[in-house]
């Protein structure tokens, strides 16, 4: 029952932290290579995949007649969400063919850290709620 109440929230938060951490590494790599000739800036995109995994699937006209049958629309579970690596070259490509815009990468890094901290905070509060539910509901 506890799993039913909290598991999807915890799963989403856990996945978000994991993906944001991976994105941080990718952005840090861009910043580290801001002056490497020929380096192409990259980013990790996962928002759309995460949204697709968290929204319930649209009702399908097909029915399953047995619970053991394969699902009609296979939906990726939250745990299986993976980020996709995309090249994000900036418009101002220097003579050394480096496509990293340091301002843009720093902005992304800051936003990413902010989102990570927000998710971590929500996760803390969710756990606090869970604890309160378990320890104080009988009083």
């Amino acid at each position: 029952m506890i799993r039913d109440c909290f598991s999807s929230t915890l799963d989403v938060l856990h996945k978000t932290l994991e993906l944001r951490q991976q994105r941080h590494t990718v952005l840090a790599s861009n910043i580290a290579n801001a002056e490497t000739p020929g380096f192409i800036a990259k980013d990790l995109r996962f928002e759309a995949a995460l949204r697709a995994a968290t929204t319930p699937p649209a009702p399908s006209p097909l029915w399953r007649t047995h619970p053991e049958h394969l699902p009609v629309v296979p939906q990726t579970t939250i745990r299986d969400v993976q980020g996709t690596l995309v090249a994000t070259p900036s418009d101002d490509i220097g003579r050394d063919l480096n496509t990293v815009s340091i301002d843009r990468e720093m902005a992304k890094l800051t936003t990413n850290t902010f989102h990570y901290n927000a998710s971590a905070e929500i996760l803390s509060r969710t756990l606090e709620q869970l604890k309160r539910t378990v320890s104080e509901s009988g009083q």
Partner: protein
Amino acid sequence: MDMMSGLQVSFSALNAQRTRMNVVASNLANAQSTRTPEGGPYKRQEVIFAAQPQRSPFEALLNDRLRDGVNEVHVQDIVSDPNGVRLEYEPDHPDANAQGYVAYPNVNVMREMVDLISASRAYEANVTAINSAKDMALRALQIGRV
């Protein structure tokens, strides 16, 4: 792919930028050096950065998907600037040639200063990335503290 690999990437950049600063300092210090062990005036040095995919055998297998996205940076080589020397007319100088010209290194102080500032800004950007990673790690440690 853990927090440490992000830090590793940033640390590699700190190292590379510090090497670049050392090279710039060497260029500035030797802007007037007319003698070197190899003979002739000092030659301006330049660093070449190269991206290097993170290599750790176990993680490489696990995170094959992200391998192309995460690159450390390292100094591949330090090369001499092939541009010629700067000749100045100083007949009294001990290293002056028969025409009275002294061959000075091809170091442009202005250019070196620009390079120095650029290296120090890049260094700061990577320090910021490290601090972000540290913040994130600290935040993650606080999750369990209910």
